[in-house]
């Protein structure tokens, strides 16, 4: 083995990548050649020193903080991708709201037209009432409302007026309808 061969193989020897046969030949050359031996020693020392060139570990506090930061940043990106779904969901919600508003517009139209129809139907009925016996629309017991110690809270008169009022204007939350108080009075008597 020449010095050139030895120096070519030197790094592979340092990296322990030579076959046993080549390694034996190289060792034999190093034993005989001081120059190549020094080259080998310095290459080995450099590799050893580089191997020890590790930085000090920054410590557990650093690692727990850093892994928490990484977790936050990656779940953040996970959240960003969910945010897309959120946006899609909110968009479908918006679509739902639009549909709902359409439905409510349609419902108001139905109510309006029903009211008009009912109104006309009611006039016809009123005409019928005037012509014949008035039909009973509602039966309400007009009694006094008393407390547990028999003090009157609502008198019979008040109850009657209240019922009339409700029938005229509609009970709270209901759509009022116009009915002649006389008709109602006569029908409830």
């Amino acid at each position, binding site marked *: 083995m020449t010095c050139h061969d030895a120096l070519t193989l030197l*790094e592979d020897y340092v*990296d322990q990548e030579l076959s046993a046969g080549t390694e034996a030949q190289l060792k034999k050359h190093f034993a005989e050649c001081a120059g190549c031996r*020094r*080259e080998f*020693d*310095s*290459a080995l*020392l*450099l*590799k050893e*020193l*580089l*191997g*020890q*060139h*590790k*930085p000090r*570990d*920054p410590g557990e506090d*650093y*690692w727990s903080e*850093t*892994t928490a*930061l*990484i*977790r936050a*940043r*990656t*779940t953040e*990106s*996970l959240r960003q991708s969910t945010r897309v779904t959120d946006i899609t969901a909110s968009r479908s919600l918006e679509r739902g709201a639009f549909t709902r508003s359409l439905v409510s517009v349609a419902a108001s139209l139905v109510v309006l037209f029903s009211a008009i129809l009912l109104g006309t139907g009611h006039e016809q009925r009123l005409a019928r009432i005037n012509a014949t016996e008035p039909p009973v629309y509602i039966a309400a017991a007009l009694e006094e409302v008393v407390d547990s110690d028999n003090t009157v809270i609502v008198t019979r008169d008040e109850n009657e007026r209240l019922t009339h009022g409700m029938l005229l204007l509609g009970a709270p939350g209901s759509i009022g309808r116009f009915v002649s108080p006389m008709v109602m009075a006569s029908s409830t008597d």
Partner: protein
Amino acid sequence: MDKGIPELVQDFLDGDQRAFETLVDRFKRKIYSLAFQVLGNHLDADEVVQETFVRVYRKRQELKDVRYFSSFVIRVATNYAIDLLRKRKGHSGIPDDTGSLPGEIQLDLSRRVKTPSEDFEKKRLMEEIFRALEQLPPRQKLTAILHDVEGYTKSEIAQTFDCPEATVRSNLHIARTKIKKILKQRLKSKE
């Protein structure tokens, strides 16, 4: 029993966040050490560690084979570290020659006497090696660090840089030769 890397990687790719965090635990010190070697300070190493894992997470679909996860992580880390290195210092002005080994440094490096001053001598040499490493172009520097400091095999480094093993071998040889040359010049100038 702890799960192996390929298994963890598969779980991670299937959307298991905890598998990802275990992978972070397994690789974080390697990345930190590597980044510290390349950039020479804690703050930059810290930035590389965080950015590497965030990028690995976001680029996970690019990982074609779970067996190559290690190379994938190292590649992401080295690419980011190289970018940061260039941003910090600009291109290295060291010429790409592979001049022969000077004699003086060989004597210095081959002196392995067991004296009380050995530790001091060793420490001084380590500092010089670190400065010498700093002067290498990024690829050579990284190859030397990955191979000689971090202990990666040539085939792993080839995988990382997506280049033939011969290129790694040659880069490593050039890096080692340059370190010795730079060391020699530094030690000579101090005499």
